[in-house]
């Protein structure tokens, strides 16, 4: 059995453990996803892409193919997998924005490895992204279901149909939930003085 096959089996086993209530398995999947996504993002950037041209959705799907491969996951497991991948992607992008922000402000100029090849975006955008993350954390507390949709849409770039399939909801429901989440995040951004 080659290494890739082994990795695939591992994720499937971990998802099964999650299903049986093993919370620590969640963390282990997340760590794997985070590492893989970051590696992929970095290699894309090395081939001349900028952060703006990162296709986050393609990245996440690539990670899926790589880690899960031929294993056929149940819908529940798939949905779990992508939710975790979205969280990982969120953390990578926010980490990036946050380090840029700190760098611009002249604070501790510690860069994540990911940042090396990036064109520095405007501070405003980094601020905005971090603000979204803070607002989203609040939404997560109030309505985890809505927060999940935001992660899949905003951080992974999935469309309503894809999200609907994944969460076993109609497109219409996803659209309605997105609308509520969007309005809430706006209220929060407003409060942070960043407008929309």
């Amino acid at each position, binding site marked *: 059995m080659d290494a890739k096959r082994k990795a695939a089996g591992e994720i499937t086993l971990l998802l099964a453990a999650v299903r049986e209530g093993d919370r620590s398995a969640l963390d282990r999947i997340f760590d794997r996803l985070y590492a893989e996504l970051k590696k992929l993002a970095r290699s894309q950037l090395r081939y001349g892409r900028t952060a*703006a041209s990162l296709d*986050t959705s393609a990245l996440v799907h690539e990670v899926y193919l790589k880690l899960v491969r031929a294993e056929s996951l149940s819908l529940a497991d798939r949905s779990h997998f992508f939710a975790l991948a979205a969280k990982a992607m969120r953390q990578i*992008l926010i980490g990036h924005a946050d380090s840029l922000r700190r760098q611009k402000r002249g604070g501790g100029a510690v860069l994540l490895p990911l940042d090396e090849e990036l064109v520095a975006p405007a501070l405003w955008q980094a601020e905005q*992204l971090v603000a979204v993350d803070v607002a989203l954390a609040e939404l997560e507390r109030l309505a985890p279901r809505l927060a999940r949709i935001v992660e899949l849409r905003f951080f992974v770039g999935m469309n309503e149909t894809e999200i609907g399939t994944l969460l076993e909801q*109609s497109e219409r429901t996803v659209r309605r939930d997105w609308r509520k989440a969007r309005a809430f995040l706006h209220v929060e951004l407003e409060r942070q003085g960043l407008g929309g």
Partner: protein
Amino acid sequence: MSSAIRDRWVEVESAFEDLADLDPEARLTHLAAIALNDIELANAVGELLAADTVERSALDLDAALLVAVVDDGSTGAAPRAEAAAPRIIGRYKILRRVGRGSSGEVFEAESKGRRVAVKRLLPGFAGTEIERRFAREREILTGLDHPAIARLLDAGTDRSGRAFLVLEWVEGRDIVSFATERALPELERLRLFLRLCEAVEFAHRHRVLHRDLKPSNILVTESGWPKLLDFGIARLLDAEGTGRETASGVWLFTLDYAAPEQILGRRPGPAADQFSLAVILYELLAGERPFERGGRPISRVLRDVDRERVPRLPWADRDLRTIVARALASDPAARFETVGAFANELAIWLAERGPTPV
């Protein structure tokens, strides 16, 4: 949004959903109605509604794009302006839009000189569960031919592929306003109510539950006949489905007619319709609803719903009180076996009281 109201997010969310698709004027009316009972909730919902109208925002991009690109103006939420009423649906000439819910809209229309009501799904439901339910309701209604149930006349799909139903047009007042405006004596109110029961019982015999019986779904025609609207579709077409309600904001009160098992999310049976009927009867007789759940936090309604005490009918007769109280029992098993049995008890009580009017 204060932190106290944040912790009531479920209520905020559901109120936002109810108001989001209304036109600005209706929104204000509804907001004002909420504010009467709960100023905090009204403020929070108002804030969300305002935020909802922001047309272009960073949130409509995706995050990776935001890291490096300023919004170029090409992406953003579609404007949510109300579309003009269509001129024609199928072979029906549309006269005006009379109502709009979150999944469908209702028009007054005309064909060969006959006035009809056309209900059409909003775009975006093709292939969804909602569309399948719409189709199923159509089959159900086809089998329901009763003088007190608005008749299904036709159904089809318009050019854009959206399903529509054509129903008998009913001109009338809702049952409670009708009784109030005509100052009907109590025995007359009971007779009117019994005709309504007959229609519901008829539907039950055809294995159809209404699930959303409330005055706004029951119109009484000039000649004094009740007509049941939105049979089974009410759940699809939502609150202001017929557009005939008063400005008081129907969605706030719908809760007041629902049986406890419905509110608690259990599968409602015919006994749930019986409960709603009894609430309507109570309102017809007492001039007010037995439960005012509408203005209270949903969490509290949920907590209290199966131990609500039915206030006594301000009514001298013990027998009638007993009948109504039984139909209003919070345990569905404690109610009458069928709507027919409930109506029967009332009919017997009525026969002992007064002669049948000519």
